[in-house]
């Protein structure tokens, strides 16, 4: 028994789930046992959006130190506007709109990697500069854009089966696929290898540039689809719709046990971390604290969790 527990505790992702469970229990304890299920449903509905971009960010971060996609918020904003325009509020055009959002995200990912590869700009600065440009495009393209999502699409993003949002089920399947992609395919193994040692990976015959390119395009594409889903869920596109996902996407990756030094990724941890962050906010809201206190506590708890989790793997 102790052995099982010890092995479970040694897994980097377990901490994020323990964190999520404890804030949920704390919230239920405070409400006297009411609304625990509803809280989980709400947490799942919101967490999925962070998980989608979190997967993209995780692949990018796994490429090694300095690799991070800061263009996700701008990407989400632009893709949400593109998707809503293409859908034009008609159910028959949903698939077309989703494709447009995917293409928009993929184009942004391509642009990011072009900057990184052709101009050899560090990824942080490349994606940051790209996000400035994207943001401007979005502002001038999306201004005054007040197109509602098609009713079919908006309803779809809100369907629940036995209290579980259908998006959460789909995203669960998607993350399992992403897990297989990471651990069982040549591409995923190449990403991990590049993150561990880019030079060694290149010498071993991995086509480093192609893999890095694919990774940035993957991240961009996931940002694009997330933008479309968010616009459906919140019933409309918005320039600022992706703003919180810059910090959130990085936070779930790292709290979930993925190494920022690269070469070590963790998919289950994304779920734990995303649920933890959303439930943390829910808990603080139930406590009825002010916005300032909520921010301070969120920050302190993130630092505390990362400190506890960091202690579990000091052998670095």
């Amino acid at each position, binding site marked *: 028994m102790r052995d099982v527990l010890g092995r479970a505790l040694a897994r980097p992702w377990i901490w994020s789930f323990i964190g999520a469970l404890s804030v949920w229990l704390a919230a239920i304890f405070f409400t006297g046992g009411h609304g625990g299920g509803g809280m989980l449903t709400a947490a799942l509905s919101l967490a999925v959006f962070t998980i989608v971009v979190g997967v993209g960010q995780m692949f990018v971060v796994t490429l090694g130190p300095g690799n991070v996609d800061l263009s996700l918020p701008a990407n989400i904003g632009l893709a949400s506007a593109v998707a809503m325009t293409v859908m034009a509020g008609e159910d028959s055009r949903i698939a077309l709109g989703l494709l447009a959002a995917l293409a928009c995200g993929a184009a942004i990912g391509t642009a990011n990697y072009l900057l990184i590869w052709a101009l050899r700009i560090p990824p942080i600065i490349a994606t940051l500069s790209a996000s400035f440009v994207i943001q*401007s495009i979005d502002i001038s393209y999306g201004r005054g854009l007040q197109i509602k999502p098609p009713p079919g699409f908006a309803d779809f993003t809100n369907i629940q089966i036995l209290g579980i949002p259908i998006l959460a089920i789909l995203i669960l399947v998607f993350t399992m696929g992403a897990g297989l992609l990471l651990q069982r395919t040549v591409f995923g193994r190449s990403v991990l290898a590049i993150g561990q040692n880019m030079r060694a990976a290149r010498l071993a015959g991995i086509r480093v540039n192609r893999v890095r390119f694919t990774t940035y395009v993957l991240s961009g594409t996931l940002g694009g689809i997330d933008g479309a889903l968010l616009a459906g869920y919140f019933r409309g596109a918005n320039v600022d719709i992706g703003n919180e996902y810059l910090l959130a996407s*990085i936070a779930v990756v790292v709290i979930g046990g993925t190494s920022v030094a690269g070469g070590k990724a963790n998919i289950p941890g994304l779920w734990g971390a995303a649920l933890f962050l959303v439930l943390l906010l829910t808990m603080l809201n139930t406590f009825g604290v002010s916005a*300032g206190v909520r921010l301070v506590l969120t*920050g302190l708890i993130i630092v505390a969790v990362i400190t506890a989790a*960091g202690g579990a793997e000091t052998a670095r």
Partner: protein
Amino acid sequence: MSSGSAAAKGALPVLGARNMPRLLRALLPALSLALVLAGIAWLNPRAISYFGFTLMLNLAVPIALATIAQMFVIAGNDLDLSIGAFVGFVGCVTATWLREAPLLGAITLLGCIAVYAALGALIHLRHLPSIVVTLGMSFVWQGLAILMLPKPGGKAPDWLLAVMKLKPPLVPFPIVAAALIAALAYVGLMRTSYGAVLRGSGGNAVAIGRAGWSLLKAKMTLFACAGLFGVLSGLALIGTTTSADANIGNGYTLLSIAGVILGGGEFVGGRVSPVGAVIGALTLALAASPLLTFMRIPPDWQVAANGIILITVLAARVLISRRDAEG
């Protein structure tokens, strides 16, 4: 490696055909600043005057200070994603407590520097990724700023307003201040033996540790310096804007990172350049609004223009360093 760090030190190498790319690389931050200035001079000659510079570079002083703060963190191979929120919090303290209860305000600001040193210790002792710790701290500073000043307001202490309104003869105040900041950071980090240890802790931590230096102390010192310059940045910001707002520093995180990189710093290896960082910050401050206003770029596209300027400068740098590597 050694050629790059020689250039990054800002010490001009001996002139010679082989050293040309190196020299160019060291001068690139200055060249980009000159280019932006030339653009402004061409578009609006009247801006190149004592008052023109005082106005245009008004906000460059806090940006330069925040960039230096970020530079200390980057020198140790870390990244501070909380500096913007921190500058905002310091601003709120400055516009409230520092004016009404100077002693309490001063103690709070000193405490902030201690918190930064403690963060350095935490990051070192627990092997934590600085990105996440500072990400968490950015929520904390932002929250504290909102608690301190729920609505924009407050007022800067009179002595601070007086300092920021100084009108030195001939050279505008922001330029004098920027030169002082650059000189201070340059001497401290580049010309003292402990400065070399600090940079070494980013370049090769194992070697510095084997040589008997405390890596914990080095990390704490780097973060304390970042905290100190963050506090100075907040002070300078409120001295310029006269009142505060909890979100006042939000753009500074990305500006400071961009400034360090624009100034010739690298994310890993302790390779930073204080003089370059200040010049990078000035370039960003000028390119951010005066240049674009004079170019009559519509507000929608000003952010994009910023991104393109950043990309252009970095692309030029890469072309030069590639020649450096080849030659």
